[in-house]
């Protein structure tokens, strides 16, 4: 046990750099996913059936094919077709973005349809244009309702980042695995790794809860400080469709 932690401390710079790769891929993947979620989610509510169909197809495709397969396809198969090798981190960010963007679009769609119809009607009665209705009235209200589900997806994304190890990006898992191989202490090594992810997940949850509180305050709903420490399972129970790297 001591040997592992000695190795851990001796290799702290590598560990931190691995942590950096994990954090970077999580944040960038979440950004791509977020943008895609809104584009696809808004397309899903478009009047034009072709636009809706494109959104539906893209969403079903990236939800239906496993994230694992998508990542491997980008990293191993695409270079054979194009002759151009993408970096592991880039592949990771794109695959996470596409996969979680597809799931996120369902959250956006659900959030928009959860805004009461009366709000649309009030916006029509004030003669706001369709764009203004969405941008000024509906989205600001929908956003607050989407955040718990987005928190779930963000944690799922974080939990998917160890896949980077399989395409040899030097993420946290890769670094800790190297220390394990050197010391042979599997149990301690993997428990340490799990604790790392647990803490990261907790920090992300806390940040998202803060964001949710701010968004709700803008709608005149005030939540106490206790809500900030609320765990994910409590949040998940509220937003019924719990989304583990999978179902909607």
């Amino acid at each position: 046990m001591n040997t592992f932690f000695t190795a851990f401390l001796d290799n702290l710079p590598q560990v931190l750099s691995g942590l950096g790769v994990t954090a970077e891929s999580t944040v960038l993947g979440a950004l791509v996913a977020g943008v895609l979620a809104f584009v696809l989610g808004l397309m899903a509510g478009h009047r034009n059936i072709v636009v809706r169909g494109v959104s539906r197809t893209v969403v079903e495709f990236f939800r239906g094919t496993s994230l694992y397969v998508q990542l491997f396809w980008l990293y191993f198969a695409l270079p054979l077709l194009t002759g151009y090798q993408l970096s592991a981190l880039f592949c990771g960010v794109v695959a996470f973005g596409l996969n979680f963007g597809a799931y996120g679009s369902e959250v956006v769609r659900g959030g928009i349809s959860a805004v009461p119809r009366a709000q649309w009607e009030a916006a029509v009665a004030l003669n706001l244009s369709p764009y203004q209705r969405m941008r000024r009235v509906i989205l600001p209200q929908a956003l607050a309702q989407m955040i718990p589900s987005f928190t779930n997806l963000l944690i799922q994304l974080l939990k998917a980042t160890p896949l980077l190890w399989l395409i040899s990006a030097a993420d946290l898992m890769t670094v800790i695995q190297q220390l394990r191989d050197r010391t042979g202490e599997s149990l301690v090594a993997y428990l340490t790794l799990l604790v790392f992810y647990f803490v990261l997940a907790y920090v992300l949850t806390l940040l998202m809860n803060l964001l949710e509180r701010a968004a709700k305050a803008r709608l005149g709903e005030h939540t106490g400080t206790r809500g900030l420490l609320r765990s994910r399972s409590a949040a998940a129970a509220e937003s019924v469709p719990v989304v583990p790297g999978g179902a909607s």
Partner: protein
Amino acid sequence: MATDPLEKTPGSTPGSAPPGAPAGAAPAADSPSPSAPAATATADAVPGQRSDTPMIRFEQVEKRYGDHVVLDKLDFEVRRGEHVTLIGPSGSGKTTILRLLMTLERLSGGVIWVGGEPLSHARTPGGGLKPATEKQLRASRRKIGMVFQQFNLFPNMNVLRNITEAPISVLGLERDEAEARARELLELVGLGDRVDAHPTQLSGGQQQRVAIARALAMRPDVLLLDEVTSALDPELVAGVLDLLRQIAHDTDITMLCVTHEMSFARDVSDQVLMFDAGRIVEQGTPEKIFTAPEHRRTREFLNAVL
């Protein structure tokens, strides 16, 4: 369609306050005081608004949901500046009329004319009509404002922003100008001190006043009021109704109200339309409808609600 109640109205409007005497004699002597000085203002306003085209004309308007007929080949007219109250049992199609005028519902048949222009149709070069596009609908909606039963204030905006949002983004007003007008309107509705409040911090009655100010900020020609006091606690109803009486007397805005407040209907209306099963069964001045109803359904309805 130019039946006598309609013909009578422009002329009878100045007189409708002195006939406020029978209204006062009747059980409902709600607020004689605000109506007395305001009546003169209406008297001045209406002759200036003389116009031969009706503000609103329903021509064979139909609304169906599947086999269920909500409005059945409806014809009626509302003159510029006229205050019309729609009464009748629930499900008789009153609210649908307002929702059609606000273009929240699509027509199943017929044409609605507002200020001589088709509301949800566009003229074709051949002189016919075709369903309007969103852009054309937006042009039609400029003339019309609506206040809802459930207020429908935007929870993501404070009181001021609720009122200035549309004038800025739709009418293109400068922010300063829009805010100055919003403050004036809030003074008018008695909420000058709640400019920065959030809608959830207001009582139902206050929220409805903000909603009225919000609708007026768009300077509509026609104001639609859809059971605006039905969701309020009883003690808050009178305040909102007094405000509407004041607006009715001080402005030349055309008003269509769906309401269950019969004394209010008697006070402000130039014309009352009694609905049943998607048809107008009786129409006339409030004095006629409330004191000498001709139709059996009207008598039954009034007996039930008064």
